[in-house]
């Protein structure tokens, strides 16, 4: 039996014992231990041993930790840094490539981190943010799924009164059309005007610069405006107490508060809040009219799940009685028919990244994009680190002799590791410094591209700087670890004898890393190309209407009926104007949704409704499939309706033409006179929804199709007409194709951001390749010399040198294809109308990567191939 004392104690003893004494004392201890174990058993011996070890922990026996090491350390560290700087200075090319690659990687990483930080910070400015929930409405009515932000007006008050969990609630209501706000001479069309309950500032914590948040929105005809808006209307005069004239009726609203300008990271932006009491809509008690966004402030510790569960009873109690009025059946039958209706809670903090409901106040982002960007940042950093490792291991052969000499002179492996790590930490420090400056300078332009106002505030936060320092160290150590451990493992005898070649082992690892770099780059190239292809596809897709050359003028409701008609006629008289129309709705977008059913049928369906005039279809060039357009020659057309193909399908009949359908809420009946071809009036992410057209002769929008040449002159002409027919009204217009493009802004931004970082990743990968190619050419100088002497041509040599890399790029390409394919298929699944993943994208990416690789390598290989062999072979 082997009798040995407990290992940890022994190790502890070895650690603290003075090295001169330790073998002898350990011997004594072991001898005693064995003897005791024999006489009194192992347990007793163990205890005695522990006691002895503890009692040995005393001044005479302890080794000195302090003096020795501190002296050694400073000197050693100093020497590390000196050597590091000398090495960098000696090898400027490698150092440059390394630093450049790392700083590009780090800059990208910083920008992405700032972006992600910004995305995650939405709505965190509210002190009670974690207790604020938005109520959403979800339903499934007549086989149409609805998930919307809008809720009925009485919901907020009822929730506060009936549920103990709810501490407070506030509603906002957005005007779908802009409002003209006037003060003295100034008249501006403001589109960020909301109605808000008096409790608005109890729930949200927008800071007020002037006015009392508790009373600001209590009285009718009062308003809170932003700093910028106050500046716009009142200049430097105090805004409080002044009256702004709101809307066409020019109702004076007293300014009772000025709120600090909203940061970009809140999920909705207002320029003006009118008190809810200013209009009667807030008192509406219809539980089936949705127009309000309801926010609930829950009590501390209240559970949102339990509250959500109680909504079911709320629906039964209040919405139930309304159902027969809208659907002609009781709530029970309504549900039995497969319909659903209910409310749910969304945490305020989740709105920006997780919510994608109908009628969002502003387009939200998506957590997936945050993940994708994070992944890209990670990859770029990884690529930069790989470069670093690659170059350092490649250079190892050159430094092998140095390592050999150091080891012979008594350098410990640990101090060699220390030296190499120090070198890479110095490099990464320099790179971080450069990257910080670059990120700071690039921040504004990055903000433009990504469409966010990202502040560099993060850069001065102490925790960020600390994290940065830690990160730099980690990158330095990580990037330097492989060369450090690899180089320090060289055996001095072999190295000094010159045995060490560029070992196959290390070149294998280098090749793997190069393959990985190109794999990542090619994947990114393919993804970027496909994002752009999808965008181009979406833009070029036949929408079912001609979106080009249509000018849309806003604010027609401010013209009297006769003014509208006269203006429209004047437009049509212009030679440049092909057609003109007045409507309440304009594609893209839809505001009204109502339930219709065939008079003869039990069940109906939800249709979007466009209220348009006689000329809408020809102006938009929407194709009529069957029947006819609204016509002045039929006086009965006020009760006529046009349906699109999707609507025909929803209402469930083969041949709808001539059928009578009824609007369930009002009981009005319409005769179907025409079927129009489906056209896209929403983002291509969605399938085309059922749509109906009803006739009107007035509207909010005036649209005109104009000649494609000399557009600006035409616009000027139209503007002067507008001034003639609508004096004092601001002329506001957009082009319809711009509005359609806006639907793809998120994807466009993603495309841009993608392409930028893809470009950077490729640059980083190429820098690495350049370094490697230089090194390889250097290593093979003699070989190339001999080959040339033996008669190889320059072309042969170039092919030889480029061939190695070509193989690697091709392997990487093969790996990238499936990965990119699956990634993009997953992304494209989010679109109802999507482009095919075509072969040429892959070919282009592969050939592109290969070309870039060749270009990078060619400079070095041509230089090597053209060199005079005499120079390389002269000295042996």
């Amino acid at each position: 039996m082997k009798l040995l004392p407990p290992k940890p104690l022994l190790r502890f003893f070895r650690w603290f014992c003075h090295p001169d004494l330790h073998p002898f004392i350990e011997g004594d201890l072991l001898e005693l231990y064995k003897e005791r174990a024999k006489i009194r058993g192992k347990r007793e011996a163990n205890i005695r041993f522990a006691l002895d070890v503890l009692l040995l922990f005393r001044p005479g026996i302890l080794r000195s930790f302090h003096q020795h090491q501190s002296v050694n350390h400073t000197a050693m560290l100093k020497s590390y840094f000196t050597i590091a700087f000398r090495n960098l200075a000696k090898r400027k090319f490698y150092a440059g490539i390394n630093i450049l690659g790392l700083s590009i990687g780090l800059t990208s990483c910083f920008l992405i981190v700032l972006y992600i930080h910004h995305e995650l910070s939405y709505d965190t400015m509210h002190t009670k943010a974690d207790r604020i929930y938005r109520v959403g409405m979800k339903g499934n009515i007549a086989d149409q799924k609805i998930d919307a932000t809008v809720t009925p007006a009485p919901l907020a008050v009822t929730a506060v009164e009936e549920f103990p969990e709810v501490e407070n609630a506030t509603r906002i209501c957005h005007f779908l059309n802009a409002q003209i706000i006037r003060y003295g001479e100034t008249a501006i069309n403001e589109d960020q005007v909301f109605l808000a309950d008096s409790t608005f500032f109890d729930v949200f914590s927008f800071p007020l610069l002037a006015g009392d948040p508790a009373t600001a929105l209590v009285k009718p005809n009062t308003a809170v405006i932003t700093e910028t808006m106050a500046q716009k209307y009142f200049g430097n005069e105090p805004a409080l107490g002044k009256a702004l004239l709101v809307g066409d009726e020019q109702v004076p609203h007293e300014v009772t508060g000025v709120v600090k300008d909203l940061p970009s990271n809140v999920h909705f932006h207002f320029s003006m809040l009118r008190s809810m009491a200013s209009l009667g809509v807030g008192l509406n008690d219809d539980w089936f009219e949705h127009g309000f966004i309801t926010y609930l402030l829950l009590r501390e510790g209240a559970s949102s799940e339990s509250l959500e569960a109680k909504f079911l009873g709320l629906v039964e109690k209040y919405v139930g009685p309304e159902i027969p009025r809208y659907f002609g059946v009781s709530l029970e039958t309504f549900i039995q028919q497969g319909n659903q209706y209910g409310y749910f809670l969304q945490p305020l903090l989740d709105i920006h990244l997780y919510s994608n409901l109908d009628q969002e106040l502003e387009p939200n982002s998506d957590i997936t994009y945050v993940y994708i960007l994070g992944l890209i940042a990670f990859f770029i950093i990884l690529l930069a680190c790989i470069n670093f490792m690659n170059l350092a291991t490649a250079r190892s052969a050159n430094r092998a002799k140095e390592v050999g000499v150091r080891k012979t002179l008594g350098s410990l492996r640990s101090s060699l590791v220390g030296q190499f790590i120090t070198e890479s930490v110095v490099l990464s420090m320099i790179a971080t410094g450069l990257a910080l400056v670059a990120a700071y300078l690039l921040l504004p332009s990055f903000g433009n591209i990504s469409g966010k106002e990202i502040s560099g505030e993060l850069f001065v936060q102490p925790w960020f700087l600390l994290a940065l320092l830690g990160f730099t160290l980690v990158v330095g150590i990580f990037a330097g670890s492989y060369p450090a451990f690899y180089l320090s493992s060289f055996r001095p005898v072999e190295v000094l004898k010159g045995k060490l070649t560029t070992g196959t082992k290390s070149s294998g690892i280098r090749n793997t890393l190069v393959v990985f770099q190109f794999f990542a780059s090619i994947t990114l190239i393919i993804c970027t190309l496909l994002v752009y292809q999808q965008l181009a596809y979406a833009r070029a897709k036949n929408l079912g209407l001609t979106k080009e050359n249509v000018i849309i003028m806003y604010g027609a409701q401010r013209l009297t009926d006769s003014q509208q008609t006269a203006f429209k006629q004047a437009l049509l008289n212009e030679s440049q104007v092909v057609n003109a129309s007045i409507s309440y709705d304009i594609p893209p977008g839809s505001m009204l949704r109502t339930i219709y059913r065939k008079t003869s049928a039990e069940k109906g369906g939800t249709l979007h409704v466009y209220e348009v005039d006689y000329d809408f279809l020809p102006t938009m060039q929407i194709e009529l499939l069957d029947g006819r357009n609204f016509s002045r020659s039929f006086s009965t057309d006020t009760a006529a309706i046009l349906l699109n193909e999707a609507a025909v399908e929803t209402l469930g009949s083969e041949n709808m033409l001539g059928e009578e359908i009824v609007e369930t809420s009002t009981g009005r009946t319409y005769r179907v006179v025409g079927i129009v071809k489906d056209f896209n009036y929403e983002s291509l992410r969605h399938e085309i929804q059922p749509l109906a057209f009803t006739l009107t002769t007035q509207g909010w929008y005036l649209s005109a199709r104009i000649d494609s040449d000399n557009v600006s002159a035409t616009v000027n002409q139209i503007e002067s007409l507008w001034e003639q027919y609508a004096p004092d009204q601001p002329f506001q217009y957009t082009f319809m194709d711009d509005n359609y493009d806006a639907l793809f802004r998120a994807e466009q931004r993603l495309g841009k951001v993608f392409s930028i970082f893809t470009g950077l990743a490729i640059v980083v990968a190429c820098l690495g390749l350049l370094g490697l190619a230089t090194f390889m050419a250097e290593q093979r100088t003699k070989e190339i010399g001999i080959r040339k002497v033996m008669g190889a041509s320059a072309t042969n040599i170039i092919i030889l040198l480029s061939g190695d890399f070509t193989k690697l790029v091709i392997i990487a390409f093969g790996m990238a294809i499936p990965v990119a394919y699956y990634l993009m298929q997953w992304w494209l699944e989010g679109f109802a109308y999507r482009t095919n993943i075509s072969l040429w994208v892959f070919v282009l990416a592969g050939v592109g990567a290969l070309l870039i690789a060749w270009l990078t390598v060619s400079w070095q290989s041509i230089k090597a191939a053209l060199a005079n062999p005499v120079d390389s072979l002269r000295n042996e």
Partner: protein
Amino acid sequence: MRKHQLGEFEEVVMLTVGVLYQEAYGVSIKKEIEERLDRSVSVGALQSALKRLENKGYLRSYAGEVTQERAGRPKRYFEITAYGKQALEYVRSTRNALWDAIPKVALDIKYLR
């Protein structure tokens, strides 16, 4: 100024080293003291005393043979130096002088108790 400084335990250790003569190393010294004086000695106390004595120049040490039961660790043997012997003698003579100087009476009182 005192010529030689020797604590009680140090003196015991030195004397024991003398007793053991060429067999004096950690464990044997410890056992010898424990046996003769009937007191327990910790390895720590012993080793630090030995180190002190060696630093003062009273003892010197040399590495001994490697044995099985010590798992290959060498023994460290101690012996008294000439200076150490002088110190011991000095201590002894001062003690003796002190003993001799005690008046009989002072000692007798003790017996009366």
